């Protein structure tokens, strides 16, 4: 081998070693994520993480949320997509898994999320800024809890969690976040205009039984007191509305079949209707 061939081989070897030996998810999970991503059918166009779900880490090894909760944020205030992303990625140095989720979000964000401009991964480092928004029974005996968080001034986020029975939940501070998303404002100069928490997100979550679910958390339009979500198979749910938010969890296949979401005022008037086609149909 010549010198250049040796150096080339060594370069390829060094770079190749940076790719983990095993994928972060199964093929079926990856396929579901990509399908969700292509569909654009999530309520708020945010499709997030399976990589961060709790089942990856044994209970006894869970670290305090303040250390481990890397979530993905949708920005609602002014701020360039590129700069927001680049700054955040550099600041928090997420690993490949987070980067992967992060990348998915950048493909989908900005369509249908009022005011959404960009996404960033952030670390929730303070519990003092968290405020309970709404809770809802989740799949397989779990509880979905949504709360707001302002980890730094001007950054408004929402965080959703799926807790199993017996897990501490808000306001007792969950020990671990299963997945979630947040909408807020970028830090620094663009943050001043961010006063409202809007948007929402959906995350694919796998239960301990192995079933795939879509966990959706969403802000409502002002004045909403009731929300219905009707699925293609004829079933419907009426998730609790609290503090302008609601959440629900459904089987991934049911969600992927398409649904109609309607938000009603106290007088019964439909304030907002959104029809989502089956995943992958557009």
């Amino acid at each position, binding site marked *: 081998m010549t010198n250049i061939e040796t150096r*080339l081989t060594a370069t390829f070897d060094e770079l190749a070693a940076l790719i983990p030996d*095993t994928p972060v998810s199964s093929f079926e999970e*990856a*396929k579901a994520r990509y399908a969700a991503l292509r569909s654009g059918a999530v309520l708020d166009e945010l499709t997030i993480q399976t990589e961060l779900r709790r089942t990856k880490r044994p209970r006894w090894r869970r670290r305090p949320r303040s250390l481990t909760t890397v979530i993905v944020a949708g920005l609602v205030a002014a701020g360039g997509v*590129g700069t927001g992303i680049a700054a955040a990625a*550099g600041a928090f140095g997420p690993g490949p898994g987070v980067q992967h989720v992060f990348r998915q979000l*950048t*493909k989908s964000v900005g369509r249908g999320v009022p005011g959404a401009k960009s996404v960033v991964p952030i670390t929730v480092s303070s519990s003092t800024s968290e405020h309970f928004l709404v809770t809802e029974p989740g799949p397989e005996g779990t509880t979905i809890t949504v709360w707001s968080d302002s980890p730094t001034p001007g950054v408004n986020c929402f965080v959703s969690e799926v807790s199993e029975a017996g897990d501490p939940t808000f306001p007792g501070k969950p020990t671990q976040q299963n997945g979630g998303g947040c909408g807020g404002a970028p830090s620094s100069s663009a943050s001043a205009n961010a006063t409202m928490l809007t948007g929402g997100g959906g995350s694919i979550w796998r239960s301990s039984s192995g079933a795939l679910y879509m966990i959706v958390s969403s802000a409502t339009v002002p004045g909403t007191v009731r929300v219905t979500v009707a699925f293609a198979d004829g079933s419907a749910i009426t998730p609790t509305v609290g503090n302008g938010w609601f959440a629900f969890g459904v089987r991934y296949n049911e969600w992927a079949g398409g649904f109609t979401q309607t938000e009603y005022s106290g007088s019964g008037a439909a304030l907002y209707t959104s029809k989502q086609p089956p995943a992958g149909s557009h």
Partner: protein
Amino acid sequence: MIVDPETAGDDVRLTADLEEVYRAHWAALVRLAWLTLGSRNDAEDVVQTAFLRLEQASAQIDDPFSYLRRIVINLALDQHRRASVALRHRPEPAPPSLNPETEEVWANVQRLPLRQRQALVLRFHADLTFEQIAADMDCPVGTVKSLVHRGLATLRGAIER
């Protein structure tokens, strides 16, 4: 074997086999695509698409890795063409910390035309023969030798001057 005629209608069997193939070959394919494209994001997209095509393949495939590798090589070409005319907004993971020698070689590799890069990656990373590379790249063996020769010459000129 991905599609077994005797179990072709058995989704469970098919899925299980595909999961096995996915776990076994995902990393090698992402590495191949990444070294070729220079983009981790694009590499993962290309590999995911390749597995989807494998899943949808109706023919019997005896060597899924070779099949996937060829798809990845072709998709990388497509991706490269698209990337050259499209604005790119997706953030790449931060560049890894490499030793200076590696960085120098890597930077120069990325400046090579894609076909030369592919040939070099298949030869010096995947350790394929010229004949295997020719089959994967769907071109004559002589073309592969030429691509490798020119790629090495360019690198030699840039690095060993």
